[in-house]
């Protein structure tokens, strides 16, 4: 009888301990880590989507014989740099690697927006259906990147908070001591300043009517 009761007590202890551990936040840290890493994967796939669109865009702009050579080159170079830097989930807590990734993608963002603003001066490109579609896709991708970054920041903020708040901080210091806070996206200086564009419409420019077109101020044009 006594032996049976000891076994009963043991089972009872296990049954009680499991939900109690879960209740005390033992599972919170891995759960939120997974969530943050999934959000990161989404950020990367959206950036990849943008990188995949760029060769098409460059080809279309070049095909229209646009004399924006430096802007195009900047986009191509920035894309090459951005795609060469990848951050794996394991290195998300490394500030240097994250900073590099963000800087490279930020440079690509600003190079792209400079290109898109400067080609607004070419009506032959605005009439190109392929270009118009690409532009819509790029805008959508930029929007998705912004949302993916925001979702990632939210997931990471929740994760970082559990690493520092009671009761999950107990697990963070003991069983999950390998869990490090992850890095957050912050608004870059490129994002805060609108791209400045100088229209190099020199004598070599064939589109004579181009300089009179002010971007975005002709609602009846469509």
């Amino acid at each position, binding site marked *: *009888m006594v032996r*049976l*009761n000891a076994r*009963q*007590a043991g*089972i*009872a202890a296990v*049954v*009680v301990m499991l*939900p*109690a551990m879960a*209740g005390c936040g033992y599972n919170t840290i891995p759960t939120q880590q997974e969530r943050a890493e999934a959000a990161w994967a*989404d950020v990367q796939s959206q950036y990849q989507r943008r990188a995949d669109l760029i060769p098409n865009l460059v080809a279309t702009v070049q095909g229209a014989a646009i004399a924006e050579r430096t802007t195009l080159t900047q986009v191509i170079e920035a894309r090459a740099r951005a795609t060469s830097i990848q951050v794996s989930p394991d290195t998300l807590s490394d500030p240097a690697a994250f900073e590099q990734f963000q800087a490279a993608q930020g440079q690509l963002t600003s190079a792209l927006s400079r290109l898109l603003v400067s080609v607004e001066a070419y009506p032959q490109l605005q009439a190109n259906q392929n270009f*118009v*579609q*690409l532009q*819509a*896709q790029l*805008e*959508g*991708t930029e*929007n*998705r990147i*912004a*949302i*993916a970054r925001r979702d990632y920041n939210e997931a990471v903020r929740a994760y970082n908070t559990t690493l520092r708040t009671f009761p999950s901080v107990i697990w963070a210091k003991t069983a999950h001591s390998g869990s490090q806070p992850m890095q957050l996206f912050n608004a870059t200086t490129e994002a805060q300043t609108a791209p400045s564009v100088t229209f190099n419409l020199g004598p070599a420019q064939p589109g004579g009517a181009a300089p009179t077109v002010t971007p975005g101020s002709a*609602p*009846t044009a*469509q």
Partner: protein
Amino acid sequence: MIQLGAPALRQAFAALLLAICFLSTPVAAQTFPELSGRVVDQAGLLEPASEAALTDRLAALEAETGDQLVVVTLDTLQDYEIEDYGYRLGRAWGIGQSENNSGVLLIVAPNERKVRIEVGYGLEPILTDAFASHVIQTQMLPAFRDGEFQSGIVAGSDSIMAQLRLDPVEAAARAAEVAAQPARPDFPFGAGIIVALVFGFVLIGLIRASSAGGKRRRGRVSPVLVWAAADMLNHATRSGSRSSGSIFRGGGSGFSGGGGSFGGGGASGGW
């Protein structure tokens, strides 16, 4: 002096706290209009008759393909960009089925002169950004520039519905995917088994204790087990009610979102 001023101070402190709460809420909380139906005409751009007709067609679309398209007109975007407002609104309402995120929002903000087609994750391959942009540029903006909001909205939503029905095989597969999803049991069976086991042990313990006539033993072991069982039950009912909350799809007659999510697909335009 402190005694005299204490209630006043406390009141002032409470008022300050309240003021801080009120000051901080507009920044933190974004309010959305109520999801009153498939057409939420907050800005009053649609005639009642065409609103009803549009609602019927939107309901037919969902019956056919499982996709939820909701038309929204807004008085104000509350100083948000329409892209920013749109995906939050879609997530807040949970438009689209939770199984495949098949929701679309057509948002018109006449005061900001902005329009957006917000596409849920699952429909991004069908309603591409380029298609959404094309619909806005060719079907909607020309009418909006003439102030013909109703015809623009109807033309735009008809184009979206046509695109969603374009491939009947694919559309049927989408509808089947939603229909085939079995209603998840509200009661977690894993936890149920554990609860049953614990109750079994309690019962065995009680029977053995009473047959042996040992009052002391019953008094010592059972409460632990009863407590464990209660704890398990508590956990089970809590998780049960939570999962049923996400499955429950609103009241009987009204329309509500299926729990779909948005990630910024679609396109916007302005006039």
